[in-house]
């Protein structure tokens, strides 16, 4: 069960009451499952990101929590209460939609006032809160503008203020930053984090941007094909991906295949042809049988590259390869190296040293080295 993942790490942190509990929820559209048996708990005050490729069921799961549509099976609890019979307008949940869904016939301030009007607050309270929340999102003075008179980033802020102004128990964000350019997106990520900390509101964010997930979240859920693949803290997700999908989806990862030859302590040895490899079984997986097929995942930043294997002292696994591609990315160069001895697999390597830039041209013969302790092994079924 995904929810068992990282339990010990959880226990080390202060524990807080659970706000949202998703219990074995499935959602099918005309028989096709968009979400399958999803289960997780989210504690009050935490920032959770649901990360996954397009079509993995992120929006579907988020909308079920918001109350738009009913799960095919399973139940969602908020504050310990089952909510499947509670209509969306009676759930205290603020949401920022992917396309914002601001009311075009109202001004920015009227948009922010809308949830308060619907809750029948009196005019003075409304005016005060609207001012306060417009200032919180740094839009003081722009309240009188129509939505189409605001820039994309400003509209984003109005949507945030509207979702927060009634101080909901839970904030849902459905990729609200996806449409922004990179610079603005990164600014808004920090902005979200600041506001979330300031108000302490429990938040579920959906994205397919792994960087955003790692930067913003207390916890990350990785989804694929409607299933939760892993739920853990960002660093844990990055360092100990629970399966090959997560390893591939987060970070730049190379995969080598082999057959288990021996198990000693945590270290598993395997061979690919006449190349000896080793690694550590990922997560809480049982040790492999001898002869079992395994796949090892190695991060690009944990592989070192050199013209000669003698320059790779201290690394316990060394292979030779040929540069297939050298990609200049500004602050670093990414080499794609074809390793013939491993069946022609492509391994990617980062080179961050500007002085050494374009040291290798495509076609050059190089040595790659890494440590077996950085290789995560997954059984192939």
């Amino acid at each position, binding site marked *: 069960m995904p929810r068992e993942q990282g339990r010990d790490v959880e226990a080390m942190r202060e524990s807080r009451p659970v706000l949202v509990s998703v219990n074995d929820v499935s959602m099918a559209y005309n028989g096709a499952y968009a979400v399958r048996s999803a289960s997780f708990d989210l504690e009050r005050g935490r920032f959770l990101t649901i990360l996954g490729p397009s079509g993995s069921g992120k929006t579907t799961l988020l909308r079920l929590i918001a109350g738009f549509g009913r799960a095919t099976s399973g139940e969602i609890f908020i504050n310990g209460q089952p909510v499947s019979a509670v209509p*969306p307008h009676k759930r205290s949940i603020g949401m920022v939609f992917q396309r914002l869904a601001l009311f075009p*016939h109202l001004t920015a301030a009227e948009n922010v006032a809308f949830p308060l009007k619907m809750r029948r607050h009196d005019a003075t309270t409304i005016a005060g809160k609207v001012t306060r929340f417009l200032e919180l999102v740094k839009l003081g003075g722009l309240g009188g503008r129509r939505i189409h008179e605001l820039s994309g980033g400003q509209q984003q802020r109005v949507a945030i203020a509207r979702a927060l102004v009634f101080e909901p128990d839970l904030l849902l964000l459905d990729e609200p930053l996806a449409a922004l350019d990179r610079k603005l997106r990164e600014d808004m990520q920090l902005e979200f984090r600041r506001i979330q900390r300031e108000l302490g509101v429990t938040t579920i964010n959906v994205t397919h941007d792994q960087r955003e997930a790692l930067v913003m979240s207390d916890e990350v859920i990785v989804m694929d094909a409607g299933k939760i693949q892993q739920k853990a803290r960002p660093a844990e997700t990055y360092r100990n991906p629970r399966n090959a999908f997560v390893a591939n989806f987060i970070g730049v990862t190379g995969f080598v295949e082999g057959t288990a030859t021996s198990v000693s302590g945590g270290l598993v040895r395997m061979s690919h042809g006449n190349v000896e490899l080793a690694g550590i079984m990922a997560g809480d997986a049982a040790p492999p049988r001898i002869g079992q097929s395994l796949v090892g995942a190695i991060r690009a930043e944990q592989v070192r590259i050199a013209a000669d294997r003698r320059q790779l002292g201290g690394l316990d696994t060394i292979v030779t390869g040929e540069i297939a591609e050298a990609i200049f990315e500004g602050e670093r160069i990414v080499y794609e190296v074809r390793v013939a001895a491993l069946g022609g697999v492509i391994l990617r390597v980062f080179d961050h040293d500007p002085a050494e830039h374009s040291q290798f041209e495509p076609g050059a013969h190089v040595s790659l080295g890494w440590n077996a302790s950085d290789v995560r092994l997954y059984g192939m079924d």
Partner: protein
Amino acid sequence: MTAPRSKSIVLWTFVISVLVLLSAPTIVVIGASFTSGNMIAFPPEGLSLKWYAKIAQATELWDAFLRSLYAAAICTIIAIPAGTLAGIALAKYPIRFATSVQMYLLLPFTIPLIGSGIGLMLVFGEARLLGQLWPVGVAVCVINLPFMIWAVSASAASLDPDLELAAANCGAPPLSTFIHVTIPGVMPGIISGSLLMFILALNEFLVSLLLVDARIVTLPVQIYNSIRSIITPDLAAVSVVFVACAVAAVFLLDRLVGLEIFLKSK
């Protein structure tokens, strides 16, 4: 660079001839209404406003005009709620008899007006409502309602469905969502649709002819009756006033919702 030029000459000639063709009847009528002679003629013989002065005093014309306004108002008042609800329902919900509804929306173009007019005459005659004015408004509304439904459903179809979810998320129960979000969202459709209904009702001739009697004729029927005896320039002047009303409505439309919205039927 001659090719683009000759192309633009052809294009402009075409555009101008179409414009002339479209506006010719109006120009002729406007010109004829300013004549100082006693016969309707284009170009007019001399210029004067005497025919306008004449129609200003022609009480039977004014009464007919007011009756037309009254019928058009009745038609619009019924069309706004009926057409709005039907248009929204059509655009937003999977309707069981979608094809039949689509057929109904084509009615104004397929059923000859004289056919539906006679049908309505029979219905109202049976109900002993002939000889009154308000049934004319109702009848015109029934016949032209598809235009209103069209305008509203086009507006509703282009409405972001997330807006209503967002309203619910903000705590608005379904009725408040409808009033505060859906209705303002389809307002351009409601305004353009109801202005269209008003103008169509104001201009309606055939149905009025069938449903009214001599005491309560609407303006187009009144004009028609006058033409049968003798065509005098005062009828041209009345037509110009009519055209002016239509132009005013279009101007109003432009000020309220913007013509580009109307043209895209958004």
